[in-house]
Structures are given as structure tokens and as C-alpha cells.
């Protein structure tokens, strides 16, 4: 029985074809994985199925009847449930209250049925904000299943989960399919596909690069995803894609004294408890230290303490002997501390302004005419040089940041931070998030080059494989504390870190 059939679906934004004649057939009783790099059109496809955007061309049918939702409400009424990467739960309400917002009758009976059938029990009386991310995700799935949908679509559901939580999620998908439901799992992680999918479809550049695939080995799928053989793939990219076999960086002896020192940093949570608790961290020149961990365990606050967006309640930040704990961002920049923020659009750049301004906003004083006027011409020609040097694909220095792809925006941010002279320390949070393979390669190459040139580098990432391939040492953030450093090249490092990430003692 065919649950969902998509034929010739296209979506264009101006001159950009986000989806270009996509065909997809999902059978009931299967888990169908839709794979692709970031920017391949996966999210656009999800939005089209979920009714939150109207396709430019093409048709869809659901269990044999024509299906053309114009808004999410119509998709839900037709029996399609979506689970998005970002949760849509009210965090100040309890789980039960959140579920009651759906206004479905016989809530208790339905919940019992879900618990029986799929083992999906949720703590009804707890406040959502207090729950771990894995449990929130489960609530989100319960929410989707409450209306007993005929088709469940999950958009990158594992991005924020730890290894054990991913296992539980994949098991749930399997059970729903075995029970006769149709599940579409959208992801860019090959490891997950091999474990749960019956069939896979690969998108590349908005088109179907491979459909009805049942050989789910990485060797088969990678060339379809990236359009070139897997052998070309740098080991670090394999890490990003979630492949199990990761080549770690050779162990190197770091004998220099640390240049960045965090001592006893604590940040208290407004309602009590700690966001960061007694964090110590030392990084030597030329060393790359990774911070692993499931998101929300203090990594964001750690970067904010470094960038100056947050003053810790206790502890000190020292860079090359200078106390920067309470320094302004300008002072930190002058001291040679470059920060690539986690949220590109919020802190990393001003999307509405042009590329040149985003590169030089902190140094406008250097581009003046007649002492008072801004020399836009000089600024733009300097920006043009940076755009060429860093291989940034942009219409020009006067193009707004928002016209650039995520990968190129990240290259601009990184180029700006790397331009510090001297660059003593670089802290990068989730530097490769949302980037396609080519951009990941470029960004990681730049970070490595910065370390080779003598900068102390801190990388926060939720991609464990990426950290192992990039870093000398990895520490794990768990509930605001940092673990002992684990040498990335040491045997068993991967398992040890994976355990620490979920709070189990290794």
C-alpha cells in the first residue's frame, strides 16, 4: 500500500530551485529515509508535505487521494504528523498541559495505547523546561502520534540527542513502521539510515540523486549524496556524516605552557543550580581542544563567557597572562581572542548588512575619508580581497549577508575572526553546523591552519566524529561540568566520550 506519492514536486525562490522535479514513493509499514547534505532540499520537502509552503509545481497523493495542503492545519486533518528539529512545546507548562493544547478527546486512553504499543511513556506532571532533550523529543513524538496520523515525518530529529536517546528514537520509528504506519525520516547522518531504514531516497541540489535504494551501505550512499566517490572524503567529514569508522588525528606532544586558562568558572542558573560549575580549562598554543556533549549542557554559556556576552559569577578567564574575565568584547578582540559564535544569525553577523560591513564593523575607524566620512570604496575592495582569499561565494562585497548560503556566511565570520593580528586564541562553537560538505572541509581546514600557526583553538561541537578527527584533546560537557580531557588518539576514546556525554561514568 502506497502511503505517500510525490510526483514532479518543484519549489523555486526567485532564481533558486530548492526542489526540482522530486519524485518520492513511501510505502506503508516502512521507514523511509530521505538523505542529503544540508541545502539539498530536505527541509523544503518537509515543509511541502507538512503544508507550511505551497510547491511551485508537482502533485502529491496520500493513500491514493489527491493531497495538496495549503496550511499545516490541512496536513494534520489529512493525517500527516510532523516532528521538527526544533521543539514546539511550551516549556513553562507541564507535559500534560502541552498535550491538552491539542484538544483531542480521550487523552488518557490514547496515551495508554501509545505506551502499550510503542513503549512511549511520558512524565505527564513534569514541566517541559526541566526535562532532558531526549524526553522532550519523546513528548514531541507522542504529540504527533496522538491524533493517530497515517504518515509521520521526522525532520532531522537526532540533531540534539545523545547516542542513547538516538537509539531509543530509532527503535520507536521501527515499531511504528512494524505496526503498519508510514515513517519518513529526514536526516544527513548515514549511520542512522543503515540502522533503521527499509528504503532510502537521496536528494542532491534539489533533485533526486537516487531513489528506492535498499543497499544502505555508506559506500553506496555517499557518492550519491556528495556527487563524488567516498575515497575523496577527508576523515573529518566522515565524522561529520556520522559514519562509525573515524580516523583520528595523530597524537602530538604539546609541551608549551597554556595560553588560555579558565579557572573555576561558575555561572548560576536564574532559578538555582549551575549552568557552568567550577570549570577549568587550559589550552596551549597550537593545540586544538574539543568540547563534546549533548547540547544544553553548558557549552553555550562557556562560549558566552569567552566572548564577553556573559560575566561568570565566579572564576577567571586569562589569555596570555591578561585577565579578561570582565573585559569588553573590543578588549578581547584587541588581546587576540577570536570567537565564532554558535548562532550565526544572532551573534555572528548582521544578516541585513553587506559582507564588507560584516567583515569590518569592529574596525570602521580604519576606513575613513576626510576624517569623518566612511570610505566604503576602500572597505569594499579590502572585502573583495578577503572574499577571494577565503573562497567565499558571494555576489560581491556589497551583497547583504542574507543573500549568502549558510556555508559562505560561516566563512565570512571565520575570515573576520582569523584576521585578528595576532590571533592568540580562537574559540569556535558549532563551526560546521548547517554547512555542506565542501564548506565543512574549508572551515575545518582554516581552523587547523590557525592552530598550526600557533593559535590555541577551542571547538565546541555536537558531532563527536568531527571532534575526534580535529582535536588533540576532547573534554565532555555534562550538566555544566567539564570532564577530564581525553586524548583523541587514545584507544577507546570514542566510547569513553559517548558514555560521558550521557552522564555514565566511563
Amino acid at each position, binding site marked *: 500500500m502506497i502511503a505517500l506519492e510525490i510526483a514532479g514536486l518543484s519549489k523555486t525562490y526567485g532564481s533558486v530551485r530548492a526542489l526540482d522535479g522530486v519524485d518520492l514513493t513511501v510505502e506503508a509499514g516502512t521507514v523511509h529515509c530521505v538523505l542529503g547534505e544540508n541545502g539539498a532540499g530536505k527541509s523544503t520537502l518537509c515543509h511541502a508535505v507538512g503544508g507550511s509552503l505551497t510547491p511551485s509545481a508537482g502533485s502529491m497523493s496520500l493513500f491514493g487521494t489527491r493531497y495538496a495542503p495549503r496550511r499545516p492545519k490541512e496536513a494534520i486533518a489529512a493525517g500527516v504528523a510532523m516532528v521538527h528539529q526544533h521543539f514546539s512545546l511550551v516549556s513553562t507548562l507541564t507535559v500534560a498541559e502541552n498535550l491538552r493544547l491539542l484538544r483531542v478527546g480521550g487523552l488518557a486512553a490514547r496515551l495508554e495505547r501509545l505506551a502499550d504499543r510503542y513503549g512511549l511513556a511520558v512524565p505527564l506532571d513534569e514541566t517541559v523546561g526541566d526535562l532532558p532533550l531526549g524526553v522532550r523529543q519523546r513528548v514531541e513524538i507522542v504529540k504527533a502520534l496522538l491524533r493517530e496520523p497515517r504518515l509521520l515525518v521526522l525532520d532531522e530529529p537526532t540533531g540534539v540527542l545523545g547516542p542513547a536517546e538516538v537509539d531509543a528514537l530509532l527503535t520507536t520509528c521501527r515499531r511504528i513502521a512494524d505496526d503498519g504506519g508510514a515513517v519518513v525520516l529526514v536526516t544527513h547522518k548515514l549511520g542512522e539510515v543503515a540502522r533503521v531504514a527499509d528504503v532510502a531516497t537521496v536528494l542532491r541540489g534539489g533533485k533526486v540523486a537516487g531513489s528506492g535504494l535498499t543497499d544502505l551501505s555508506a559506500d553506496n550512499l555517499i557518492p550519491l549524496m556528495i556527487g563524488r566517490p567516498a575515497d575523496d572524503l577527508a576523515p573529518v567529514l566522515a565524522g561529520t556524516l556520522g559514519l562509525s569508522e573515524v580516523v583520528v588525528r595523530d597524537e602530538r606532544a604539546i609541551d608549551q605552557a597554556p595560553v588560555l586558562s579558565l579557572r573555576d568558572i561558575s555561572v548560576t542558573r536564574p532559578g538555582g543550580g549551575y549552568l557552568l560549575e567550577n570549570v577549568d580549562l587550559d589550552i596551549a598554543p597550537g593545540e586544538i581542544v574539543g568540547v563534546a556533549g549533548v547540547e544544553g549542557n553548558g557549552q553555550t554559556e562557556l562560549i558566552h563567557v569567552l*566572548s*564577553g*556576552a556573559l560575566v561568570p559569577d565566579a572564576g577567571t578567564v586569562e589569555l596570555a597572562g591578561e585577565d579578561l574575565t570582565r573585559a*569588553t*568584547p*573590543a578588549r578581547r*578582540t584587541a588581546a587576540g581572542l577570536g*570567537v565564532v*559564535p554558535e548562532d550565526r544569525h*544572532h*551573534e*555572528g*553577523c*548582521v*544578516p*541585513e*548588512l553587506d559582507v564588507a*560591513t560584516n567583515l569590518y*564593523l*569592529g574596525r*570602521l*575607524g580604519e*576606513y*575613513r575619508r576626510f576624517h*569623518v*566620512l*566612511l570610505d566604503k570604496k576602500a572597505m569594499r575592495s579590502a572585502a573583495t580581497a578577503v572574499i577571494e582569499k577565503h573562497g567565499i561565494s558571494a555576489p560581491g562585497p556589497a551583497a547583504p549577508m542574507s543573500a549568502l548560503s549558510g556555508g559562505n556566511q560561516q566563512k565570512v565570520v571565520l575570515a573576520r575572526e582569523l584576521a585578528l593580528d595576532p590571533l592568540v586564541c580562537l574559540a569556535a562553537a558549532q563551526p560546521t553546523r548547517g554547512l555542506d560538505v565542501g564548506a565543512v572541509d574549508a572551515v575545518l581546514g582554516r581552523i587547523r591552519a590557525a592552530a598550526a600557526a600557533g593559535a590555541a583553538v577551542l571547538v565546541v561541537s555536537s558531532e563527536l566524529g568531527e571532534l575526534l578527527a580535529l582535536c588533540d584533546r576532547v573534554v565532555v560537557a555534562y550538566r555544566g561540568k567539564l570532564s577530564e580531557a581525553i586524548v583523541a588518539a587514545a584507544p577507546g576514546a570514542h566510547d569513553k566520550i559517548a558514555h560521558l556525554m550521557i552522564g555514565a561514568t566511563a
Partner: protein
Amino acid sequence: MIAAVRHPVFVGAVAAIVAACAGLLLAAGAGTSPAVAVDALVEGMTGTPYAIGSSLNTAAVLALIAAGFTVAYRAGLVNVGGEGQLCVGGVTGAAAGLALPQGVPGWIGVPVVLIAGFAGGAAWASIAGLLKAKRGTSEVITTLLLNFVGAGVLALAVHEEALLRQPVTSAETLPQSAPLPPGARLPLIGSIESPATLIVVLAVAAALIVALVLRHTPTGLRLTAVGHSPAASARLGLGVARLEVGGLAVAGGLAGAAGACLVATAPYVLAEHFSSGYGFTGLVVGLLARGSLTAVLAIALLFGLLTNGGINLQLAAGVPAASVQVVQSLLVLLIAASMIWTRKGAR
């Protein structure tokens, strides 16, 4: 085709026609034929040198306030406090002017009054600016509420003899200040029959300087960056608090200078209701101009003309001047509503 229909200029023209028709209907309701009403309106706007001069003066006050609004708006702040800043600027301007000796020359007296007015308005707006920068209090709320406090300061100043009230000689002494010395009064420009003063030149100069600063200086670009993203601007080392307080202070300063200009215009006294709501009309001008200083000047001129035309409408044609306010408000509503529509088209 649809894109052309959604073009802002087209939408603005349609809004103006609809508002004008509503105005004519109101006039007809008051028993005046459209031809008579239009005649009276045009007469009041530009019919005599006096009409032109007073329209220009009103337009200049609105343009000063709207230019200031645009500066703060660029930094992401909405200054709703033009009226209060104008009142306080009027008080400080009058205080400075009255402190000058009677024989002060114009090249000293006028700048002193203007600078005092600017400083008063800027200080008043800085209260809201500091609260915003240090405590995150919404500037919309604080500037709005400071309007009432500013009006109170003005009332106190003109009612208390110890402050700015003219010496009380009888029960009929009005609660207003003594007239400013001749050297502190704004000089007239143009013909003797026209009341247009130096404020017209000042307003155009202010609009030009604001346009230049916002478009062509590092400060303008920094303000723009803070307006779009305070977080990213802070990360990049900009003094976000300084820029926010500064932006709001300039907005208040220009409103305060406008207040001082009003005091330094005939009859040269500070009275309780010397403003007649310019602060709020200036805010509307700033909002409608949406960051363009050319639009600030054009809309301020339109509103200046309509205000004076409305007064004549009442005097000559017997149509209540309030009907012009209805037309103005209708215009604002229509344009504001159409913004949603034009934006939808752009998406």
C-alpha cells in the same frame, strides 16, 4: 501588474485620494460644498505669504522631531517621547534666553537658546536611553510616560514665579514666562509679511546632516548595525549602550531644539500649551517616512500645510478644523495598513 499595484508610491497616492474624499464628505456633512472647502483649505495652506510662512514653520518643527526620530529608529529604538522632550527643551531654552541681558546680540542669543533647548531635550531622552541600556526597560514605555512628566515640568515652570513665570502684578497675569529678549528671538527669513523664521533653515540643515551621518559615516553604520542586531554588534566590539543612549539623546535633542524654536517665535513666551501636540505629529511623520530623510521633509511639509489649511477651513468655511485631523489620521491608518500589504507582495 500586481507588483505595480503594490508599489508604495501608488499605495500612498490611493491612500491620499481616499483620505481626501473622506475629508470632503466631512465638509459636506458640515454643510459646506466641496468647492468652497477646497478653496478655504488651499487659501490657508498657500494663499498668502502669511499662510505660506506659518505652514513652513509648522513643517519645520515636525521635520526636526521626525529627523531625530529617524536617528533613534536607526538604532532600533522607537522614540515616542517627542512631546515631553519638546516641552523640556522649551523650558530650558526659555530659561537660558531669559537669563540673557536685554541687549544681547542675536549671534549669541539665538545659539544659546537653541543649544539650551537641545541639551534639555537630550538630557530628558537620555533618562529613557540609560534605562534601556542599563536595565533593558522598553524605551517605548519610558519615553511615552516621560511625556507626561515633561508636560508637568512645563506646567510647573510657567506657574511658579520662582521658576519662569512672569512677575505677577494682578489676578489677570497669565501663567506664562516674560518675553525673551530681542536678541534671543529667531530672525525672520524672507518677506516681512511672512512669519517664516530661521527654524525652516535649521530643519532642512538638520535633515541634511542626519542623512549624511546615517549614510556616509562610521557612526551611521554602527547605529544601523545596533538597530539590526545588538548581540552581533556587541560581539564585534561596538559600544551598544553608548550608541543607544546617543541615538535617543539626539532624537530628544532635536525635539528639544524644536521646542526652543517655538519659544523663540512670536509671541516669544513660554506658555503651558505652546506645543499643540507637535511631538506626537512629528512622531507620525517619522514613522511614515520609514527612515528616509527626503520623506521626512516631504511628509512634514504636507502635514504643515494641512494643519494651517485646516485652521483656515474653520475660519473661512465653517468646517471644524478637527476634520483635517480626521483626514490626517485616516491617511496614517491607510498607509500603516497598506504596509502589511506591500510587504506581503514583496515576499
